[in-house]
């Protein structure tokens, strides 16, 4: 397919752009295969807007006479308005945008066309390999091994080719365990707590069904993670009720009788459409500027967004507590083990492991616990808060995770190497990006190309030809990890803190993430200035320190010179 077919009117003059907090700009609107571009074309101070079609969540058209207005609502929650003279032009532009923003073929996405204008110092695709992670692990313990059982994605389609499992469990046993777990997601190592050797495992639900099926290998596998005489905790991210109902569909939970060394705790975290609806309601509340205080608070409450934040954080704190305070190993799962499970395991690591609070460590966490662990980004982030189309698999699972990280960052403002901007940047790139990092739903798909999705059957015709994201697209990390880019995301207050950080989950301690949800609704001028001021103060101190040191050195040198002269 040629993009040109979709672009009926590539260019319109005298279009007026309205954006929040900026004066209206008049200019020329151009449509390309991947961008909507508006340029003021003024000599003195040309203003340009480049908007990825894939960032567009929905559009609305309005007409007053022959003047058409298109309201574009973006996945990053921004809303812009274009006034386009001429009804036909406006209709053409609208239909083109609609078509271009809803392309369903992955290989037509911008990352496959994007040519980087920067020098690649480090290939992000190779920055965080499971082998490196295992090397780190084997320097502190030899109880684990790297299994290549999933090399061809034949055991578990949503797992990466290599996983870390207990040394005492062989691949044959793993195959049996995989049969016993939903989507074949058998328990794998998520985190090793160096301080006391306790571990966090993650998996999907066991397929016990109504008649209480059991699997000896499964029991053996998870018991292998326990120290002699120690007990462990299974954190089920569903309520007991939901977990029980899952048995009717063949799923279920670990029975005490078969897992006597494990205590099961149910910590309910919502999923799918409930989360998506929550996001839609929250964004709607933030964007409606007409209401009074009571209505705002009641809408904020009704969105339940902060309730979800509290639930997720509570479950993560609990997991961290079991590991660090109780000295127990933990297994986390919900149903599929691709959403709430990952929220809990990744947040627990941020609480426990100082490395995850550095930029590189956090990137590694995102790669390990989200990308390689098979969080279906493409499904979850297909649409955002403004979409009119019927929601299928969309859910702001990763955004909730980022929001929880922000909440912890707010409570421990000096313990993170990155600032809020880093989290916002990740949020944007999960929904629309020039990089290939968040394309696809798992490592399997990132390597194997999906040719087409048949909407009727929902089945995917999979061809074995490789998608070759690594060769054909640029990794987000290649771009972000360049020093000049990285400096934008550094937290000026950072002072490495090697301790476990326990956030408060009291409602009074949790706040709406203004940087994302009010970003386009209120001017951040004064807050930005405060941030600058803070950076200036801290930077100035650093320079002073350097100056004092240099002076001291100079003085010492002079004194030595003097002495030498005296000696002469």
């Amino acid at each position, binding site marked *: 397919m040629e993009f040109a077919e979709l672009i009926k009117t590539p260019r319109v003059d005298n279009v007026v752009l309205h954006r929040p907090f900026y004066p209206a700009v008049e200019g020329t609107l151009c449509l390309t295969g991947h961008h909507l571009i508006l340029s003021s074309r003024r000599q003195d101070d040309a203003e340009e807007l480049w908007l990825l079609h894939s960032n567009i969540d929905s559009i609305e058209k309005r007409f007053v006479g022959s003047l058409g207005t298109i309201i574009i609502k973006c996945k990053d929650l921004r809303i812009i308005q274009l006034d386009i003279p001429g009804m036909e032009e406006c209709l053409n532009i609208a239909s083109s945008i609609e078509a271009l923003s809803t392309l369903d073929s992955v290989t037509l996405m911008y990352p496959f066309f994007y040519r980087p204008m920067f020098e690649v110092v480090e290939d992000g695709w190779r920055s965080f390999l499971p082998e490196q992670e295992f090397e780190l692990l084997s320097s502190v313990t030899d109880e684990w091994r790297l299994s290549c059982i999933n090399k061809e994605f034949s055991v578990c389609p949503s797992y990466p080719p290599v996983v870390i499992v207990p040394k005492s469990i062989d691949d044959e046993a793993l195959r049996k365990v995989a049969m016993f777990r939903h989507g074949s997601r058998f328990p794998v190592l998520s985190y090793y707590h160096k301080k006391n050797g306790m571990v966090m495992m993650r998996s999907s639900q066991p397929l016990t069904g109504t008649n209480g099926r059991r699997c000896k290998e499964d029991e053996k596998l998870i018991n292998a993670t326990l120290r002699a005489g120690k007990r462990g905790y299974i954190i089920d991210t569903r309520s007991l009720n939901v977990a029980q109902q899952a048995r009717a569909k063949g799923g279920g939970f670990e029975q005490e009788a078969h897992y006597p060394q494990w205590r099961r705790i149910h910590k309910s975290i919502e999923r799918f459409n409930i989360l998506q609806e929550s996001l839609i309601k929250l964004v709607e509340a*933030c964007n409606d500027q007409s*209401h*009074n*205080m*009571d*209505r*705002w*608070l*009641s809408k*904020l*409450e009704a969105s*339940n967004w*902060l*309730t979800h934040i*509290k639930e997720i954080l509570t479950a993560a704190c609990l997991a961290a507590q079991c590991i660090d305070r109780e000295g127990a190993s933990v297994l986390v799962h919900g149903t599929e083990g691709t959403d709430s499970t990952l929220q809990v395991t990744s947040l627990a690591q941020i609480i426990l492991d100082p490395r995850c609070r550095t930029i590189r460590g956090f990137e590694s966490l995102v790669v390990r616990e989200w990308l390689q662990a098979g969080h279906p980004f493409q499904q979850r982030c297909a649409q955002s808060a403004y979409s009119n189309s019927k929601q299928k698999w969309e859910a702001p699972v990763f955004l909730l995770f980022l929001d929880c990280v922000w909440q912890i960052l*707010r*409570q*421990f*403002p*000096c*313990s993170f190497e990155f600032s809020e901007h880093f989290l916002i940047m990740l949020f944007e790139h999960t929904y629309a990006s020039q990089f290939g990092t968040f394309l696809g739903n798992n490592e399997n798909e990132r390597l194997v190309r999906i040719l087409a999705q048949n909407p009727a059957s929902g089945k995917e015709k999979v061809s074995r030809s490789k998608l070759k994201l690594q060769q054909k697209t640029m990794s987000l990390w290649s771009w972000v990890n360049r020093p000049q880019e990285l400096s934008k995301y550094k937290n000026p*207050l950072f*002072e490495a*803190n090697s*301790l476990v*950080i*326990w*956030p*408060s989950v*009291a*409602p*009074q*301690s949790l*706040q*709406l993430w203004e940087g994302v949800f009010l970003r386009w*609704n*209120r*001017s951040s001028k*004064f*807050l930005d*200035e*405060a941030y600058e*001021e*803070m950076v*200036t*103060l801290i*930077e*100035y*101190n650093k*320079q*002073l*320190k*350097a*100056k*004092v040191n*240099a*002076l001291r050195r*100079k*003085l010492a040198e*002079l004194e030595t010179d003097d002495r030498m002269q005296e000696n002469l």
Partner: protein
Amino acid sequence: MVEYVKASHEDFGVRLKKGYEDAENEEENLMLDRKEKKESAGKIQRDGFKVQLCHVDGGKSRSQQDTKPCDAKRANPFTGAILSLSLKVMYGMVENVKLLDRYTNRKAANGTLYLTATHLIYVDASAEVRKETWILHHHIATVEKLPLTTAGCPLLIHCKNFHVAHFVIGQERDCHEVYTSLLKLSQPVKPEDLYAFSYNPKMSKDNREIGWKLIDLKVDYQRMGIPNDYWEITDANKDYEVCNTYPPEIVVPRAANKATVIGSSRFRSRGRIPVLSYLYKENNAAICRCSQPLSGFSARCLEDEQMLQAIREANPGSPFMYVVDTRPKLNAIANRAAGKGYENEDNYDNIRFKFIGIENIHVMRNSLQKLLEVCETKSPSMSDFLTGLENSGWLRHIKAVMDAGVFLAKAVKDEKASVLVHCSDGWDRTAQVCSLASLLLDPFYRTFKGFMVLIEKEWIAMGHKFSHRCGHLDGDPKEVSPVFTQFIECVWQLMQQFPCTFEFNERFLLEIHDHVYSCQFGNFLGTCHKEREDLKIFEKTHSLWPFLLQKKQEFRNPLYRGFTAYKELQPNTLPFSFQFWCGMYNRFDKGMHPKQCVLDHLLSCMSQKMKLEDNASELENKLPFLDGPLPTEACSFPKMGSASKTPMLNTPQDYEGEPPPVLTNGTAVGDVEVMSDVDQKNKENLSKHQDPHDLKDAFGVLDSEAKDGKPQHP
């Protein structure tokens, strides 16, 4: 853990003398755990404690006289106590008292409760590090005895600074004794029993008097350019003839003669005639304040109409003026039946009348009550909390006050129109709204000094009834209302939106809020200027402000960009711009607060910066000459150029105090690079005077500052 925790706190070792006769235990050294100390007591209590010490000294002789061990006293320490504050000594001690923690299920602390003349002190004996909880008697809002439990007799104390302490006392009898003592101590009947009258920071009489002169409202009017062609400062009220709740000197239009003033005062509730609150020099638009007119259904008053005309004409640039009634319309209408009411637009020339519905003191009191119930709920869900927050209406009221302040500021600045503001008596909502508008319009009020002036002017001088609203004395509980708290919160909300515009930080607000209730200083006692004169406040008590200025270092805002960086503020008043102030209403639940404090971090950066700059200049002086710039000097120091924050380098105590314009000659101060040996010596001299009791030098500086150093409006 992190370096900034260590910084800036002196050693809190204090000696607490117990009030029972046990030769060996008569004195006991208490090392206060720093964190807990901060948590439980804050700084006032520490100051208060010093005073308490001198009481104890006085009391020691007494106790030695009626000596001999009193086992009886020990069994029931309160029976022997004399409940007379005239002695200013009150001893008592109960052992085996538990302090419950509302938020954790930790084992309750076990310790001893001491009752002194000024504080209730709980010493936790079970903790490894000594932990103390101090509660100033005046801070106690309510004491409740809860039903007996197996653990003992629970005593629940709610404080006016939102501290909640839940004790469990072993013996019911002891609990009752503590209970009745606290009831008496927390709300004395006679004003002379208030803490301020016995508080003795060992300061000379001269210094105390200088302290009271620190804030001179006349200087503030001069700053606005008054007297001028249109406005004059009159002593028309010198014998409180016009209005007994106004100060002797008031600012009225020149065009309003004595007859007009007197006539108008008869037509205004409690004689509170329209007087100037703030003059916006740029365009001559003024904010004036008064009480409601006694208009009833049809009454009118020629002098009052002339008064308003005079105010309007004092701003020749505008053909009209606003008259703003800050009450809900219904309330105002209801007042007409009682012979009061609001201005009839037909009777006054060229006024635009407007209601701004801020609710009355009773609604506000109930709202706060509901808010506090929400804050105190044990492990609420998010939904519980947000619903409770909404139902309390608290943020709705805060928004209403803020909206009103914004309306005033806009009318003055954008429409260039003068505004006359009133509510019923003009001492609650009017004070909130006028002071907020001034704060939005004039950066001076966002400095330390300016904020003090603002509170003195709009609240203290103009007769906000602190004594009644704060329940200082045993009185009508229906008079109590968090009007001032709301104002303080509005300032905090502004700080959230404009983090670089205030010279002071959140702690300064909390400290002022604490002292409004503490009765430790005279400023907030009584209800109006006349009453304070009658109480001999100025002779017998100390003023709060110099004490706050002394602690400037910990109250300043490290992000402040200086006096000239921002002029008028236009806050966003959409509902989402208002946040719940956890630092106020859950202030003592430290577990809820961010575990690392950016403010602390930046404050330590500031002090580090001073040290480094000292080091740098010292080293530079030692270096005989330099051939060229040092490599590191090549990097530019962004701050040095703009210099707006450097003045503090001059003195360790930072009495540069006021924003840069203080230095009228316009030279840049405090350039580190040129600091000479002489400066260095001065600095050392100054630093010798850090003894908190030796305020003389400090006052010397403050005094001259008060006289000459007023920043002029640019």
